[in-house]
């Protein structure tokens, strides 16, 4: 990590400590949700942006994390942190299984199967309502004895920063190098001794585990888990955040998450048009500026920024 980048990151972290001092409860909530989306979009970007595989089960895995942890805490009385740990493990295992089955057949198979998995998970959660409470939502305990948005904000901030550090380390490690080798030239990568399938399955499992973790925290923050968490609508939002912010860059999904989440709060006043609007923007971005907002800014400033 370059010296300048380190200082910029520090400055952002210091700045991020202050919002609870002046933001209203409502906007603090928006910030917490944004942090959740940062975790989701960044970990999705880890496979899509860095290994070129499109998973449509990212929201589904976060739902696995949320429901696993939620049901363990409700029915077995486990503490939330243990529930989240197990939920993350479940998401990782499922990710590994699906990845192992599909990735050897190519990226198209992964996309198709993860889409199917999302739909099936939604159907199961909606129908098995004696366990999941279906569309009514499952009420789960929170993290803190005394509910406070400020505590949740700092909790989410710490988890998000830790997750981002892990992602940053992965991208800039030898493993990240093989990810990009696989993305840029699969044939060359496999002929220079990289097991492309294994690299991709591993990346997919790691990314799925991360979304399980994010989902677990999300569930214990909302304290009500509904089938919207693993829905394709949620998946679309995460994807749009990464695409609009900039796929394949570290800062892109972070910028995209904050911009889109805050924007959707303003648009919500006029009705549920934000999905349609974000869809059109994402289409235009994918078509004309595949490097996203961050890519555009970077070109403009012509200097290393993130």
């Amino acid at each position, binding site marked *: 990590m370059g010296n300048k980048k380190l200082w910029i990151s520090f400055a952002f972290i210091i700045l991020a400590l202050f919002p609870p001092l002046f933001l209203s409860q409502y906007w603090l909530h928006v910030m917490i949700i944004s942090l959740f989306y940062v975790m989701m979009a960044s970990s999705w970007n880890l496979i*899509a942006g860095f290994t*070129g*595989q*499109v998973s*449509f089960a990212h929201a589904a895995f976060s739902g696995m994390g949320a429901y696993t942890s939620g049901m363990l805490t409700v029915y077995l009385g486990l503490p939330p942190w243990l529930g989240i740990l197990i939920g993350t493990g479940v998401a990782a295992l499922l990710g590994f299984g699906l990845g192992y*089955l*599909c990735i*050897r*057949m*190519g*990226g*198209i*198979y992964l*996309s*198709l*199967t993860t*889409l*199917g*998995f999302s*739909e*099936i998970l939604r*159907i*199961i959660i909606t*129908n098995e309502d004696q366990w999941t409470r279906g569309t009514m939502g499952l009420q789960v305990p929170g993290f803190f004895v005394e509910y406070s948005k400020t505590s949740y904000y700092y909790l989410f901030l710490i988890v998000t920063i830790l997750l981002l550090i892990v992602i940053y380390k992965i991208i800039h490690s030898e493993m990240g190098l093989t990810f990009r080798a696989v993305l840029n030239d699969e044939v060359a990568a496999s002929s220079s001794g990289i097991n492309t399938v294994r690299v991709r399955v591993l990346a997919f499992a790691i990314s799925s585990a991360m979304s399980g973790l994010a989902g677990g925290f999300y569930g214990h923050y909302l304290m009500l888990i509904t089938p919207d968490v693993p829905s*394709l*609508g949620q998946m*679309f939002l995460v*994807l*749009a955040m990464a*695409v609009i912010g900039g796929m394949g860059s570290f800062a892109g999904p972070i910028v995209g998450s904050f911009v889109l989440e805050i924007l959707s709060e303003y648009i919500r006043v006029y009705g549920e048009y934000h*999905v*349609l609007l974000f*869809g*059109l923007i*994402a*289409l235009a971005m*994918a*078509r004309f500026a*595949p490097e996203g907002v961050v890519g555009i800014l970077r070109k403009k400033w012509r200097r290393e920024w993130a």
Partner: protein
Amino acid sequence: MYLTNGIVIGVINAISAIGVSLIVGIMKVVNFAHGELYIFAGYFSYHLSVSLGVPPLLAMPLSIFLIFLIGIGMERTLIRPTYGDEMYSLIITFVLSIVLQNAALLIFGPYPQKPPNWVTGAMNIFGLYHYGNQRILSFFISIGVLLSIFYLIKRTWFGKSIRAISQDREMAALVGVDHLKVNMLAFGLGAALAGAAGVVLSPIFPVTPSGSSSVSLNAFIVVVLGGMGSLKGCVVGGLILGILENLGAAYISTMYRHIFGFIILILVLVFRPWGLFGQKTQ
């Protein structure tokens, strides 16, 4: 009875799946907006016949033609720049499916709609049970569509170009196949097939904007089951899925109708990932 239902649905599954398979076969693009095109076709045929008073049998080809045009427009503006970049085509068609789904909600509203039946009544089949005339007619129209698709692919110049491109794009270009034009028409045709399935099935099962994902999913499962790019696979896969889903829904549970499809998908991926009629090497 359930078996008959399965066969009728199976044939329509096959039409819808051929639409996906055609596009995957020659362009390596999966059209995630497939189900939305189906839904739009259903709504078009409803509004043409109910709101505008067009006779149902004319509204049908008209809706399919509209969907064909939409498909061509999609290929021309959004898909063409992504050739060779599988990831962006997957992302774009997925986003498109969400956009179209929301647009359908906005334009047509959330209520299920069903175009009027073309025929009424039921007839006795082999003296065993009564079966709705509408379903029987849908079945024969679907068979007709299937036969004309096979004729188009196997016997005409356009079909030869499609098969040439899916086997070897560069060689096809060398011998003078205009692959851009063929791609565009094939994408339009794939869209039109989604539309055909939509107009044939919507008088039986009403369309809603939220029903699109299960349509797409069924088509994808059939394509993987039959083998990507294989037309024969689509027909056999479509029938298998149609029959199993209907028998499963009848004897095990209706709620889990779609889960049988997903189980089939996973089993195929475990035991025969290239599908029933696909090539083993990619």
